[in-house]
């Protein structure tokens, strides 16, 4: 009988969309699904994970999880793995969570695969599908037998669906805290306002802007388009280098890799370094005045035209059709 442990990403107990997607995926792969939730408020969100198929949720509410980076969670994850007896771990391929999985894997001799977009099970081996070389190729990979299997899942690879299960059994973990995990102290968290927009790597829709916007002010247009579609804002390297938009929104080889349901690129020519960060998106739309821009070669729908002319009526037309 196989047990899969799912490491949950949450905000004071509110489970993030990606973790619901992972629980949904896990249901088809293991006999027993356990979950682990660490940090302040974890207990508040534990029981309801039963609806997504988790039978047991291991929680640890200690504030040391938010006061110190990574290492307290490594301790807790080891305790959760011991308690559940699982040797398969699924986690969101989010940078900070990946740090936790990476350190834990070294401690437990596990093999780690990140950014899986599909998962199957072959006997007791999880087989992960992922894009490599910026999406030019697809690889199927696995952890070799005899090692715990840690697989990171990319956002939006699966659709979250409730299974209508009973409330999960909640188990409080007893995790020892000492100075060995209090090494990287979180002194301050600084949030920049991005309205009510979803996080870019979790968003189903991303509106992205590039050099063609002309200036930082041009991003107001992209923000309005993103808001009309309930999406996030992305940017090309040219735009973040110019200081028009914060770097954490940069999509491409040196920035983030995204694969939303819909990507709209405006004023982005689509150099290979940018395509490496978005070409596995399910639907790609390009708005560019240069009909020869390489982005049109991968676009499902292209508008050859001036984005400053096209986007304002586009927002109106979207709102009209929504109404």
């Amino acid at each position: 009988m196989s047990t899969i442990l799912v490491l949950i990403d949450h905000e004071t107990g509110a489970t993030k969309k990606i973790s619901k997607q992972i629980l949904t995926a896990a249901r088809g792969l293991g006999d027993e699904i356990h979950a682990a939730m660490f940090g302040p408020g974890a207990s508040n969100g534990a029981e309801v994970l039963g609806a997504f198929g988790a039978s047991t949720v291991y929680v640890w509410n200690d504030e040391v999880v938010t006061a110190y980076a990574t290492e307290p969670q490594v301790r807790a994850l080891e305790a959760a793995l011991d308690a559940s007896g699982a040797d398969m771990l699924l986690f969101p391929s989010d940078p900070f969570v990946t740090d936790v999985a990476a350190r834990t894997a070294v401690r437990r001799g596990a093999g780690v695969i990140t950014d899986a977009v599909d998962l199957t099970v072959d006997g007791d081996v999880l087989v992960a599908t992922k894009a490599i070389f910026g999406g030019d190729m697809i690889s199927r990979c696995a952890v070799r037998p005899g090692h715990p299997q840690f697989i990171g899942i990319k956002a939006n690879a699966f659709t979250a669906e409730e299974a209508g299960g009973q409330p999960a059994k909640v188990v409080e973990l007893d995790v020892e805290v000492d100075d060995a995990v209090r090494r990287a102290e979180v002194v301050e968290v600084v949030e920049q306002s991005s309205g009510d927009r979803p996080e870019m790597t979790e968003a189903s829709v991303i509106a992205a802007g590039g050099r063609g916007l002309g200036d930082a002010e041009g991003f107001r247009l992209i923000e309005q388009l993103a808001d009309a579609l309930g999406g996030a804002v992305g940017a090309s390297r040219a735009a973040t280098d110019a200081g028009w938009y914060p770097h954490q929104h940069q999509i491409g080889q040196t920035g983030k890799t995204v694969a939303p349901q819909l990507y709209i690129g405006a004023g982005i020519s689509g150099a290979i370094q940018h395509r490496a960060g978005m070409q596995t998106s399910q639907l790609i739309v390009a708005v560019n005045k240069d009909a020869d821009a390489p982005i049109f070669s991968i676009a499902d729908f292209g508008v050859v035209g001036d984005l400053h002319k096209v986007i304002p009526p586009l927002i109106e037309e979207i709102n009209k059709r929504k109404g």
Partner: protein
Amino acid sequence: VPDTAADKHVDPDDHTVDRDRSDPVLNANDEWAIEEALRISERTPGTEIIALCMGPEQAQTTVRKALSYGLDGAIQVTDAALSGSDAAATARVLAAALSDEQFDLVIMGNQSSDARTMLVPAMLAEYLGVPALTYVKHLEIEGGVFTAHRETATGHAVVRARGPVVVSVVEAINEPRYPTFKGIMAAKKKPVAQRDLAALGVPPDEVGLDGSRTHVLDVSPRPPKEAGRTVVDDGSGQVGAEALADWLVEQKII
């Protein structure tokens, strides 16, 4: 790493990158790590910067490129048994190469442009037994304490740790300089210490293709996309906007 813009060749038998057929380049994200190290050494006289690279013989070109920015020396770990190493095996070998070094800081890019697993910095820190400050866009050092701004989805977190530490950096941290002609010439004469697995005391059967804990089952080209639809706007914006909005309805986005 192989150049992103170049054609990639994967060995059909073992699914490793055919490095003989790909131009090796310095990983873009590591350029910011080199630049940050140079800035630290400029602020802190007496700082020594060593490049550490694991790779095949032809990675020597990349090591010389790194040295051309003005680093003091380099360690290159090369061994035929390393081909096909995964992130954990790579981190283990890098840690072994550092075991004899007295360091305050190991600084690296947050990701490689080929595999992009983002695992190596945290794994290396675990093997070394030191804290890691990852995804750093601003770094200060005072009295052996490293204060970093870690990039988050919505801003940053200020995180502080006493050295030695592993730091991984993102692009926003700085604007890298170009190597000077003098630097390029000097790089040719800088010492590059060559190490193999025997020298590091790492058993060859615990790294490389067969010794890594993960393996690739198969690799295939991405399925070709059907040609998309294109609408040429008439200059008013309305034609393009309406066609695109209709299509978004058709695709059930709205």
